[in-house]
């Protein structure tokens, strides 16, 4: 479904990604793990069109998407829930969610999708009139997730949804991701909680200093020495 082939991305003259290749198949949950500064966010931003790769090729369902602007990529069915949430702070929860349904073909069904999102996140229903900037961190992350779902994506790209959240909220976040996985949405997930992430992912990639150094079935990676030492603290 998503094919990233030999992608390199630069910030000006500084190269951050080196020949990265990665794939996500229909309905699959794929984890991308790696230390801070490894380039995980840069990779997701390259996929969603926020950054242009310097070389390489990205295809989604057979169509080349590298070089397309982000508004054209979401149109194809990739929804990126960015690091740090990036909510519209001066808009209400409801308006933030509605913005997620901005695509013309989705906008007319926004009420229906909104009801669905409120089912997943009942707290957002109660908070719908509140300005996004007045929410707690956990609630803000739920708005970001809900907003990302509003475009009815076939691939969800999620960047550190649990960062800075209390353990209970983190569990809630993983529960939601498992629910989505159960609905057949493909997911590419970056997470600091490597153990929990590998448990819900089918496959995983390890990114180190801008290069993929390891990939495989999550079950196998959980027992890989490198992962145990570097990310699981075993």
């Amino acid at each position: 479904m998503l094919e990233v082939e030999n992608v390199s991305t630069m910030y000006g003259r500084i190269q951050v990604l080196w020949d990265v290749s990665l794939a996500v198949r229909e309905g699959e949950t794929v984890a991308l793990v790696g230390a801070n500064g490894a380039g995980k966010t840069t990779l997701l931003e390259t996929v969603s069109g926020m950054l242009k790769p310097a070389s390489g090729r990205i295809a989604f369902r057979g169509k080349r998407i590298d070089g397309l602007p982000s508004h054209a990529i979401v149109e194809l069915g990739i929804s990126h829930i960015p690091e740090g949430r990036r909510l519209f702070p001066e808009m209400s929860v409801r308006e933030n969610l509605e913005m997620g349904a901005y695509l013309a073909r989705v906008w007319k069904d926004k009420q229906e999708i909104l009801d669905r999102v409120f089912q997943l996140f009942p707290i957002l229903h109660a908070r719908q009139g509140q300005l996004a900037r007045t929410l707690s961190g956990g609630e803000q992350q739920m708005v970001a997730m809900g907003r990302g779902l509003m475009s009815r994506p076939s691939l969800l790209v999620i960047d550190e949804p649990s960062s800075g959240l209390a353990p209970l909220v983190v569990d809630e976040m993983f529960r939601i991701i498992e629910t989505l996985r159960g609905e057949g949405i493909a997911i590419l997930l970056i997470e600091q909680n490597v153990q929990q992430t590998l448990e819900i992912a089918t496959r995983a990639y390890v990114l180190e200093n801008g290069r993929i150094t390891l990939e495989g079935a999550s079950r196998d990676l959980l027992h890989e020495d490198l992962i145990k030492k570097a990310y699981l603290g075993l």
Partner: protein
Amino acid sequence: MMVTILDIIIAGMLLGGIYALIAVGLSLQYGVARVLNIAHGEFIMLGAFITWTLYTAFGVNPLLSLALCGPTLFLIGYVLYIVLFSRLRVRAASPGAYEGNSMLACFGLLFIIQNLAILIWGADIKGYSFFAFPVDFAGARFAANRLITLGFAIVIGLVFYLFLARTRLGKAIRASAQEPEAAGLMGVNIDRVLALCFGLGALMAGLGGALISMSYKIQPTMGLEYTMIALIVIVLGGLGSIPGSFIGGFLLGLVGSIVTYVEPGLALVAYYVIFMMVLLLKPKGVLGK
């Protein structure tokens, strides 16, 4: 005494309506599209002169010209953004560099538009008389055209507010102002929304200019004063806040009418003093958070 206070307040509202309108326009261009449009006043001047020409040469009702000036100026603004500013934005090394470059480009526009206007219309002061008869309003007397101006400013302001608050495009504009990259991730074509904002800003200037020409004398060099006033209002109302600009316009109009009552020559000086005080003491605006 009561009547005088009421007089001053109403005169302030009448002035404020225009200020609010032109400030909302500049606020869209600077607050959303990030173009500090120093040539805003020149767009106002264009609206005023188009209306004056249509009235004096063809007898077209200035209220009808409003309906013509708006779309014309919108088109000019929209196209200018696409051919000039969006390219500057793509080429700029950083957002800060873009703001600098686009402001310089606006300086150029200011001179080009102003000189073209002098070539076409000549440099001298012009005016016409339209609905200039006095009417009694809340116990005070005002020229009818001032009341028309206020009415239109309020209606345009409200319509625009509803557009921003309720419509899909209006929401996209607000989202783009607050988090442009995230708006892009939602499917908003940022470049097009910014062009729309710049166009709408020019539209407001055009409407403002047409309304101004009904009550005030006009000349090709009139623009700078209005640019300054719009700039002061958007700082007063909090940069980027459209409702703030609207309310700020009425606030400044009130100040203007109070100062004018005491000493007519000092209104602009008073505006400037307020501007400096807001920048120094409340840089996020009197109405800002």
